[in-house]
């Protein structure tokens, strides 16, 4: 099992408030790790620290078993909570731009744009400006931008928020498919029914990881009917 991403003793304070305290996690290749927690629990901060977009006060992050470097970002697919798209541009132009920033050559880009547009069902809307997109379409385009360069590791912050159940289904099917292609995914969510689709979940509350494990194991260990109950119980290890 190859460790793709790991965080050791990550601690982050903002003024007096502790946002993350001593968080440890590691992701093996080919797994979907669900980061679960109520809003304000520090999920986004954790993802940003793992990406190197925010500094932690203590602890260290290793990306593909080394210190994060510019060249290792080549294998990262990041999708933020905000859609992070250029609204004046068409969907095609957005994909084209992020594709070239990721180092794809022109021919390759063209081909990949077609492929990812197909995957997120936006093929017929590629020439529309993002301004004219609905919220759900923007979300899917944002995901497509993270997919364009076939990364090995995905960090997806609430990828399915605002999508209808049908689309959510198809997106989770896509995650399964990425996983089969040996990709590693870390997905934050606060939707409980998505938890069961993850290989492992980490429960984050008040900046601490309450528990980690496969959904089935967690239910067994804590003797609860649903993962939510672990939060309600507020148990620690």
């Amino acid at each position: 099992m190859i460790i793709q991403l790991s965080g050791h003793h990550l601690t982050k304070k903002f003024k007096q408030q502790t946002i993350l305290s001593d968080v440890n996690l590691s992701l093996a290749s080919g797994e979907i790790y669900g980061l679960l927690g109520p809003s304000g629990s520090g999920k986004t901060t954790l993802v940003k620290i793992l990406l190197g977009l925010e500094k932690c006060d203590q602890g260290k992050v290793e990306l593909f078993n080394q210190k994060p470097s510019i060249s290792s970002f080549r294998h990262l697919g990041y999708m933020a909570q905000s859609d992070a798209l250029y609204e004046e541009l068409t969907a095609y132009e957005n994909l084209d731009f992020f594709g070239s920033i990721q180092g794809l050559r022109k021919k390759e880009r063209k081909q990949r744009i077609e492929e990812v547009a197909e995957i997120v069902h936006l093929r017929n809307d590629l020439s529309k400006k993002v301004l004219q997109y609905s919220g759900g379409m923007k979300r899917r385009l944002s995901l497509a931008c993270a997919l364009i360069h076939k990364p090995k590791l995905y960090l997806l912050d609430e990828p399915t928020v605002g999508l209808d159940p049908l689309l959510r289904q198809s997106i989770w099917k896509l995650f399964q498919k990425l996983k089969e292609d040996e990709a590693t995914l870390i997905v934050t969510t606060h939707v409980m029914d998505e938890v069961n689709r993850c290989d492992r979940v980490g429960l984050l509350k008040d900046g601490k990881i309450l528990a980690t494990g496969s959904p089935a194991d967690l239910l067994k260990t804590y003797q609860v009917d649903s993962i939510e109950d672990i939060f309600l119980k507020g148990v620690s290890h």
Partner: protein
Amino acid sequence: MQNILALTNRISRQFIRDKRTLALLIVAPILILTLVWVVFGAKTDEPKLAVVGDSKLPMVKQFTLQDIKSLNLKQAKSELKNQEIDAYIEIKEPLSVHLEGSDPPTNQRALKKIQDTLGQAQNQGQQKLSIHYLYGNKDMKMFDSFGPVLLGLFVFFFIFLLSGVSFLRERTTGTLDRLMASPIKNIEIILGYLSGFGLFAMIQSIILTFYSIYVLQMNIEGSIFYVLLTIFILSLSALTLGMLLSTFARNELQIVQFIPIVIVPQIFFSGLFKLDNLPLWGQIIGKFTPLYYAADALKDIMIRGAQFSDWWGDLALLLGFSLLFIILHMVTLRSYRKA
């Protein structure tokens, strides 16, 4: 290189799509320059004068010969009050001049005309003073003297505003995060912005300069190419400063809040007003503003027709400002992401 090109390409596309921003960049400065030209470029009126005194006196005749009307004291007083005339001179011992007084430039013009007329009366037959201009000429209007400064100011202001807001948007929409999570170097982001915006800054410089010189007939002694070069280099400093300061703003309004702090002081120290009489600290502040050097170079080129050797130092300093802003921006981006 591919990264820089991709950014340039993207920024150009965004510009072309956003018609209002394009208009802000080009139409707005043209409009303001034209308005300033209308207000300050028009030929100044002759002051409206009257003379009060016995029409048989030679001195009164001297005035009426100059098409200055002769009134009695009561009429003169009431016309002055109703602003029909700007001043009247009462021919008595000693001579007394009464001015309307609410507008200093008009006062000066009225006084000058009266003095000229009196001078002619006294110096009849004597030699005429001959006046020579080292730079400029007697037909130079106010607009010609501060036009070059205004040209620089508008370029600086609009480029600063636009680059600040677009880089800020990059952060607030989260696209900067996406860039930061991809293998693009910080310097490539800055250079991409420089080349994307630089392209439009160049178009703006060309249009504004040609408009000022050929349509508004702004005085130009030196080469147009030098004017363009100066304005373009000035716009680079506005570009880099806007990007740098956008990292300290959380939203568009906070960018606007930089205007009174960053732009307005530069206007005062840019040479629009004479700086020689300022206290030392004021003169020193002026030396820290990019616009000061641009205005200095532009006045050298446009009014004095100076050669490259006279103003290259100004341009070098402007480039130095840009470099400083880029380095500071790199430092702030570094705290955001290493590498």
